[in-house]
C-alpha cells in the first residue's frame, strides 16, 4: 500500500526514493538487521553536505532494493546532525518502506519516533528487537496488540540471534501507515489542516512539515520558506503567532503533551513488567520511595549531605590533606625537590620558576596533588556511591521541588542537576530548552551558582574546617542568590512547571569495585584537565611577579580586595587563577587559611565570592560556542562584578554583626 500524502512533487529524486529505510534509536540493533538484509556488499558515504555517514546496500534476500541504514536518533525533530540527516532522508524521499527498529526494553523511547513517523505517514513496519533481553528482565510487550493499535505489522525479534527475522521479508511487502496519529487539541488541528492543505502540492509530508513549522523548529522554517511564496510564508507565521496568543501554555508544550498522552496510552495498552507488579516490595524499593517523599525525603537528603560533608570535608580535607601536604610533600618531596633543583640548576630565575614562591613544582603540583587530589578523591568516592546506589536521580527529584518552588520552567531542572557533575557539559544540554531566553538564563544560572563536583569538593573541604554556622551562611548566600536570580528568571520566562520527567531506576547496594574503578577514571580525567591549568596559572603568576606586574595588580586591586571584600592583599592571586578554574582559586584560599592568613569571616567571604565566579575557562568557551561571543561576554561581565558585589555585601554584614 502506498500512503504518500501526495505523488505530485516539485522535488527532484533524492535519497530515500523507493528504498528500504532503517530508522531507530542508537544501539537498538539496526546495523545487525542491515547486515542481515544486505550481506557483505555495503557502501558507506557521507550524506550530502554533512560529515554524517550513511550506509547503503542491496537487499540480497528478495527484492533487490536499496537498503539505507540511517544514523541512530532519539527524535525526528532534529537537534544533532545525525537527527537532521535521518529526518531529511525521510522528509525528502518517497521510500518503499520504512523499518523502525525499536528496543523492546526501552519501548517508550522508540514510541516517540513512532509517533513522529505517524505524522509523516510513511509506509511502516515496526521491528520490536531485543525481545530476548526484555523477556530476561520480565518485560512483556504485546506485539499483536501493538500491531492492532497502530495498524502496521509489528515483528518481535532478537536480531543478534536471527530470531523472528524470517517474517520480515514478508512484512516488507505489505507496509501500512500508522493509524491513529497523534491527535492535538482542536485549535491546533484546525491550524494544521489549513497549513497541510497549502503544503500538499509542494512537499511529500505536508502534515509533518506543518506540525514542525508550528512547533517553531528552525530547520522546518527554512524548509517551508524555500518552498512557498513570501505571502504564504507570512500567513503561516501569522497562523503560528495567533495560535500561540490564544493560549497561556506555550504551543510546543501543548503539542508535546498530546504526543506524551499518545505514548502513555500506547504503553499502558501493550507494555507490562512482571517484576514491578508481582514481586513483594523490598527494602531497596521502600528506601527509593522514601527518598523522594515530600516529608521523609528531606531528613534522608540532610543525612546524605551530612555524610558527604563528614567524609569529604572532615576526612578528605582534614585528615588526608594534612597528611599528604604536611608529611609527604612538606617533609619529604618539596625539600628534596628544592635541594635537587638548587643544586643542579645554577640560574636563580629558573630555580624560582620551579621551586620559588610561584614555582611549578612547589606550588602548582603541590596544590594539585597535596590539596586538591585528596579532596576530590573522597568526593568522587562519595559521588560514585550516590550514583551507584540510585540516589542521584532521587536527588534530582528533590532539587526539582526547590526549582519548582522558584517557579522555574521544569525543563530547566535537568541542566541544573547535570551542572553538579560538570557545568561545561550541562551548558551544552541547555540547547534542548525551547526559547533563547530559557537557554541564556539557565546558562547564566549554571555559571553563576552551580558548583561542579570538583569545585563542590574543595569548597566542602574548606568549610569542614569551620563550624556548621559558616557552612549554613555559605549555603544560604549561594542558594539565596540562585533563588533570587531564578525567581527573576521565572518572571521573565513563564512556563509549565510540571514537565520534569525522569524515570527512577531502583535503589541498589553499590559495588565497591565499580566505585573504585569509576573514581580512578575520574581522577585520571581530573588530573589531565586541571594540572595543565594549574601549571599555566602558576606560570602566569610567576611572570607577573618577575616583571613586577603582580605587585602593581595587587596595589590596583586593593580597594576591591582589601577595602570592599576585607581580605588580605594576597587573595588577589587566588582570584587571578580563579579565572582559569574556580577550584584553583579555592585551593589558594585553602592554603591561606591553613597558613592562618584568613579569619573565619574572611574564609566565608572568599568562598562565597569564588563560588559565584565563572566556573572555568572551558565553561567560558562552551558559552561562546553555544550562546555566541556577545552573550558569553555579557554573562561573564555580569557574573564577575556581581560575585564581588555579593562578597562585599556579605563582608559588611558579617562585620556589622561582629
Amino acid at each position: 500500500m502506498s500512503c504518500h500524502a501526495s505523488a505530485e512533487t516539485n522535488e527532484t529524486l533524492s535519497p530515500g526514493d523507493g528504498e528500504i529505510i532503517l530508522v531507530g534509536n542508537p544501539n537498538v540493533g539496526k546495523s545487525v538487521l542491515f547486515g542481515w538484509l544486505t550481506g557483505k556488499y555495503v557502501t558507506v558515504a557521507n550524506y550530502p553536505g554533512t560529515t554524517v555517514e550513511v550506509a547503503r546496500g542491496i537487499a540480497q534476500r528478495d527484492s533487490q532494493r536499496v537498503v539505507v541504514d540511517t544514523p541512530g536518533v532519539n527524535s525526528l525533530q532534529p537537534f544533532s546532525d545525525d537527527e537532521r540527516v535521518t529526518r531529511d532522508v525521510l522528509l525528502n524521499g518517497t521510500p518503499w518502506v520504512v523499518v523502525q527498529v525499536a528496543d523492546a526494553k526501552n519501548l517508550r523511547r522508540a514510541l516517540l519516533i513512532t509517533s513522529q513517523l505517524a505524522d509523516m505517514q510513511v509506509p511502516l513496519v515496526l521491528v520490536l528487537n531485543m525481545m530476548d533481553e526484555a523477556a530476561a528482565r520480565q518485560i512483556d510487550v504485546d506485539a499483536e496488540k501493538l500491531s492492532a493499535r497502530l495498524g502496521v505489522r509489528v515483528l518481535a525479534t532478537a536480531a543478534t540471534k536471527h530470531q523472528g527475522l524470517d517474517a520480515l521479508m514478508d512484512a516488507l511487502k505489505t507496509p501500512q501507515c500508522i493509524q491513529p496519529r497523534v491527535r492535538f487539541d482542536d485549535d491546533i488541528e484546525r491550524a494544521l489542516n489549513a497549513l497541510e492543505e497549502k503544503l500538499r502540492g509542494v512537499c511529500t509530508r505536508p502534515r509533518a512539515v506543518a506540525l514542525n513549522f508550528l512547533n517553531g523548529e528552525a530547520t522546518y522554517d527554512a524548509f517551508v520558506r524555500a518552498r512557498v511564496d513570501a505571502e504564504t510564508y507570512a500567513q503561516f507565521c501569522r497562523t503560528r503567532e495567533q495560535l500561540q496568543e490564544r493560549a497561556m501554555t506555550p504551543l510546543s508544550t501543548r503539542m508535546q503533551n498530546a504526543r506524551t498522552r499518545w505514548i502513555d496510552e500506547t504503553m499502558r495498552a501493550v507494555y507490562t513488567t512482571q517484576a514491578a507488579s508481582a514481586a513483594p516490595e523490598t527494602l531497596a524499593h521502600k528506601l527509593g520511595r522514601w527518598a523522594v517523599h515530600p516529608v521523609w525525603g528531606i531528613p534522608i537528603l540532610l543525612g546524605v549531605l551530612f555524610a558527604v560533608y563528614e567524609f569529604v570535608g572532615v576526612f578528605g580535607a582534614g585528615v588526608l590533606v594534612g597528611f599528604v601536604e604536611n608529611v609527604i610533600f612538606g617533609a619529604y618531596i618539596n625539600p628534596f625537590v628544592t635541594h635537587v633543583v638548587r643544586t643542579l640548576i645554577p640560574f636563580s630565575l629558573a630555580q624560582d620558576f620551579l621551586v620559588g614562591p610561584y614555582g611549578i613544582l612547589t606550588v602548582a603540583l603541590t596544590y594539585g596533588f597535596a590539596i586538591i587530589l585528596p579532596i576530590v578523591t573522597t568526593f568522587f568516592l562519595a559521588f560514585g556511591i550516590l550514583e551507584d546506589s540510585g540516589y542521584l536521580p532521587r536527588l534530582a527529584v528533590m532539587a526539582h521541588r526547590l526549582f519548582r518552588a522558584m517557579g522555574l520552567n521544569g525543563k530547566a531542572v535537568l541542566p541544573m542537576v547535570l551542572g553538579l557533575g560538570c557545568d561545561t557539559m550541562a551548558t551544552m544540554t541547555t540547547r534542548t530548552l525551547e526559547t533563547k531566553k530559557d537557554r541564556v538564563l539557565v546558562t547564566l544560572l549554571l555559571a553563576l551558582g552551580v558548583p561542579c563536583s570538583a569545585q563542590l569538593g574543595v569548597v566542602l573541604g574548606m568549610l569542614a574546617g569551620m563550624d556548621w554556622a559558616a557552612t549554613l551562611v555559605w549555603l544560604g548566600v549561594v542558594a539565596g542568590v540562585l533563588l533570587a536570580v531564578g525567581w527573576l528568571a521565572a518572571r521573565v520566562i513563564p512556563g509549565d512547571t510540571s514537565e520534569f520527567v525522569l524515570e527512577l531506576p531502583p535503589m541498589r547496594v553499590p559495588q565497591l569495585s565499580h566505585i573504585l574503578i569509576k573514581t580512578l577514571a575520574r581522577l585520571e580525567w581530573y588530573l589531565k584537565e586541571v594540572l595543565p591549568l594549574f601549571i599555566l596559572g602558576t606560570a602566569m603568576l610567576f611572570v607577573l611577579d618577575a616583571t613586577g606586574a603582580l605587585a602593581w595588580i595587587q596595589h590596583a586591586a586593593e580597594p576591591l580586595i582589601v577595602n570592599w571584600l576585607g581580605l588580605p592583599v594576597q587573595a588577589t592571586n587566588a582570584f587571578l587563577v580563579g579565572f582559569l578554574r574556580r577550584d584553583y582559586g579555592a585551593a589558594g584560599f585553602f592554603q591561606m587559611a591553613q597558613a592562618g592568613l584568613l579569619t573565619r569571616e574572611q574564609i566565608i567571604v572568599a568562598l562565597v565570592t569564588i563560588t559565584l565566579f565563572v566556573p572555568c575557562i572551558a565553561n567560558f568557551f562552551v558559552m561562546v560556542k553555544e550562546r555566541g561571543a556577545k552573550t558569553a561576554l555579557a554573562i561573564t561581565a555580569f557574573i564577575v562584578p556581581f560575585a564581588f558585589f555579593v562578597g562585599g555585601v556579605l563582608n559588611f554584614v558579617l562585620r556589622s554583626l561582629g
Partner: protein
Amino acid sequence: MIRCALCGFEYEPVPSCPASCPLNGACHFVCCPRCGYQNIDASQSAAVKLVTEKSAVISNAVSNLVSRIEISRIRSK
C-alpha cells in the same frame, strides 16, 4: 554497556561528543542518549587499564603460587 547513573538507561559507550564541547572527546565521559548525563567510561582510562591488567597478573601469580604450594603439599604426603 553503560548504565546511566541518572536515569538508568543502558547504552553502548559510543563516542558521540557534541561539536561544541571544548574537550573534543579528550575526556572519559559518555553522554547518556536519553537524559544527557555524563557517565564515566572507565574503559577509556589508562589508569584503570593498568590497574586491572596488573591486578589480573597479581591474581594469576597468587593463584599459581597457591596451586604450587598445594601440589607440593600433596607430593610431600
